């Protein structure tokens, strides 16, 4: 797998516990009615692409995060209130100037290869992530501000930063920078990719390519993150982590009991599962940006705000979400995930209003219609080129785009959906050959807005990639976002982000759809399953199988 194939995400932890108010739906209350029993093998079926490397330092994508959560641990975690809690680090301290952080590590922890977990191990891990040869992208960005490390004592590690980073703890909570055995890291990358060694409740014992990874319980495990339901080793003997890309096969396997948990559940199966008493549903929307369609303001016709607004008004997203997602998710009118406390929702801006859309287009000079019913101006048709990455949009989302295409046609837009494989899709973006595009982006905190909509993001990297796909070039917005990133005062910061979001949304640069979908279905014999409130990956540490 290419790094970042399934979901492009650059997860930078940003905001700490600031204003978070327990809005995360990412956990399930363990069944209280019975006591956990040990033993058994749980089969997990992933619809995500099979990782090419099981070490999430390398590259760093969501499929890696999903599986690595089972055998790697981070320095810190988050609870479902959004507060940072201890994990491998028991406590931490920021210097007054914000340029030095001291982490005190938990005593007596060893990696599953026997290597002790200590300050040197943390140093080795940070060095590994920052080593260009590792090829880390997600972790690398997360640790960007760390300039050097220092082992104060075997149990205390000190990090030196280039600039204050209030998002450091969030960054370190990510599984992409989780701790691995320094001994194991010294092996070749191929070896480490095949069997990374961590401190987690399970360990990798076998990997049959294109079939499954076998994870076996770490019997020496003592305790999980502070919000775990129990201590000591995990209940499950082992986990078989299968890769079943075909969603129908995956669900059928769950129904038949061949597998116990599936991810990437399709909306229709979620509805069906909810009617069943054998299958339960876990909804854990990913943090960061909402799923949205970016309108390319850098070229015609979307360089005209009237046309952008007309397009947004002509799209009947509500109806499509309702019919395709069966109320398994809610319509979003924000640029941010609903998991973000600072998210600003503006339902007033994104309602379906074909009459207004028509008026707007008339005002913008797109007054004539051609034989096919599409609007024309100066002999050019009102065309919206919309490349769709089939790797990044689930079928229901692709269907939603088709419905959008159909409703927009009534207003006179010729939406040209072109499903593409990932590399063609990147190619189309790099060539600026698009008017609208949907690109998921996972990152904790409102700082994601700076990456996505600051005009710096228009300049492409050598590969042609750039993040500001709406090509928003608004100095005032740039100023607001830059200012917000520097501001540590919670209220001032919230105010800046609110202003920035309002400015962005009122500019009609994007059409929000819904949160990034992250649905799991599991058989009700699986108890104690929850998603970690960091990047919403499920953890099986507390999970057990009822007889």
């Amino acid at each position: 797998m290419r790094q970042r194939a399934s979901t492009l995400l650059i997860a930078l932890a940003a905001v700490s516990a600031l204003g978070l108010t327990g809005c995360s739906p990412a956990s399930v209350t363990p069944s209280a009615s019975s006591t956990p029993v040990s033993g058994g093998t749980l089969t997990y079926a992933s619809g995500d692409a099979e990782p090419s490397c099981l070490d999430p330092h390398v590259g760093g994508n969501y499929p890696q995060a999903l599986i690595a959560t089972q055998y790697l641990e981070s320095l810190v975690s988050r609870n479902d209130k959004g507060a940072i809690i201890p994990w491998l680090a028991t406590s931490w301290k920021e210097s007054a100037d914000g340029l030095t952080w001291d982490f005190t590590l938990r005593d007596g922890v060893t990696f599953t290869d026997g290597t002790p977990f200590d300050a040197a191990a943390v140093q080795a891990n940070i060095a590994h992530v920052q080593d260009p040869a590792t090829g880390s992208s997600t972790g690398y960005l997360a640790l960007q501000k760390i300039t050097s490390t220092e082992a104060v004592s075997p149990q205390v590690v000190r990090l030196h930063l280039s600039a204050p980073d209030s998002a450091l703890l969030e960054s370190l909570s990510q599984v992409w920078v989780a701790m691995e055995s320094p001994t194991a890291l010294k092996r070749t990358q191929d070896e480490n990719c095949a069997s990374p060694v961590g401190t987690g409740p399970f360990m990798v014992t076998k990997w049959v390519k294109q079939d499954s990874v076998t994870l076996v319980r770490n019997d020496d495990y003592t305790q999980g993150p502070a919000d775990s339901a129990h201590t000591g080793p995990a209940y499950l003997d082992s986990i078989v982590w299968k890769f079943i890309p075909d969603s129908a096969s995956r669900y059928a396997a769950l129904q038949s009991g061949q597998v116990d948990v599936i991810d990437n559940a399709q909306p229709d199966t979620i509805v069906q599962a909810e009617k069943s008493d054998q299958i339960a549903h876990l909804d854990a929307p990913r943090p960061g940006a909402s799923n949205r369609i970016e309108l390319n303001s850098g070229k015609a016709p979307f360089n005209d705000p009237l046309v952008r607004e007309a397009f947004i008004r002509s799209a009947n997203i509500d109806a499509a979400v309702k019919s395709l997602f069966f109320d398994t998710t809610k319509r979003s009118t924000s640029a941010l995930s609903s998991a973000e406390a600072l998210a600003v929702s503006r339902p007033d801006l994104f309602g379906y209003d074909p009459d207004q859309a028509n008026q707007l287009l008339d005002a913008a000079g797109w007054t004539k219609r051609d034989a096919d019913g599409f609007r024309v101006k100066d002999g050019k048709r009102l065309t919206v080129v919309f490349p769709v990455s089939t790797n990044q949009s689930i079928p229901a989302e692709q269907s939603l785009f088709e419905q959008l295409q159909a409703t927009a046609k009534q207003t006179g837009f010729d939406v040209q959906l072109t499903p593409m494989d990932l590399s063609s899709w990147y190619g189309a973006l790099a060539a600026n050959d698009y008017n609208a595009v949907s690109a998921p982006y996972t990152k904790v905190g409102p700082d994601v807005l700076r990456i996505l909509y600051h005009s710096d993001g228009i300049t492409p990297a050598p590969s042609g990639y750039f993040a500001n796909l709406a090509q928003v070039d608004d100095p005032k917005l740039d100023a607001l976002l830059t200012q917000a990133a520097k501001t540590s005062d919670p209220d001032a910061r919230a105010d800046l982000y609110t202003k920035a979001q309002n400015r962005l949304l009122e500019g009609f640069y994007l059409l929000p759809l819904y949160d990034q979908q992250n649905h799991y279905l599991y058989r009700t014999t699986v108890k104690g399953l929850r998603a970690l409130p960091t990047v919403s990956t499920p953890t099986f540490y507390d999970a057990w199988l009822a007889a």
Partner: protein
Amino acid sequence: MSELEVQATLSRGERSRSRGRRVTPFEVLAVVVALFLLVAGLLPGLLAPGDPLGIDPAAAFQPPSPAHWFGTDESGRDIWTRVVHGAGTSLVIGFAATAIGLGVGLVLGTIAGMLGPAVDFSVNRLLEVLFAFPGLLLALLFILIFGPGVWTATVAVGLSASPGYARIIRGQLLAVRRSSFVEAATVLGRTRRQLLLRHILPNTLAPLFVLGTLGVGQAIVWASALSYLGLGAQPPAAEWGAMLSAGRTYLTTAWWMSFFPGLVIVLTAVAATVLGRAIERRARYA
């Protein structure tokens, strides 16, 4: 051997055991299917007046009913309408792929069959090499180079069928050239040109009609397989393979979404086979 050659062999077997020219119920059915496809392909509005792309989210996922014979899909589009309108796409793909396959096959086969043993040897080795790429593999390789899409899929299917056509045409050409009626015409003092135009070409080309009929059915199935794998026609195009592929996502909740497009693919393939054989059975050439 290619699938095409197997098909051709089978239909020749049909001829050898033809017992009269009685029309079998199978053939009637095949003609009905073919007529349906033709009408659907040329005048889809006649059979399904609706818009194949017209959505109606409120009417999504409806099972087959008098209002929606084949049910509706995830966007409330009528599947009957889409199947009917998809016939045109599928037929165009089928015919275009067959034309490409036949065209390339004809060139290769004629070169091999007419230009002497050395050329024949070389072309035969080339065909042998091409046969080492099983059908879908050749198509996948082609798509790898030129990217997915309806037209690349069509060309890919046509190209991957062409070695089969080439070998059949070459064999037929050699058989006709060596046949006693061509010898008899030589004895009558016919010129090479006359032999070629009056005897060799007509008798070589006549069976291609049957071959083409069989080939169209096959090409439609292969192209829909590519669409199914996401490498051919792309949704929301009303192409059968793409519809089936989209429908598979909703297999557990809306079986009709994948069942009916699949059914017409099977029916089309069966009809092409039966028709091909029926023509073969009644063909003028022996």
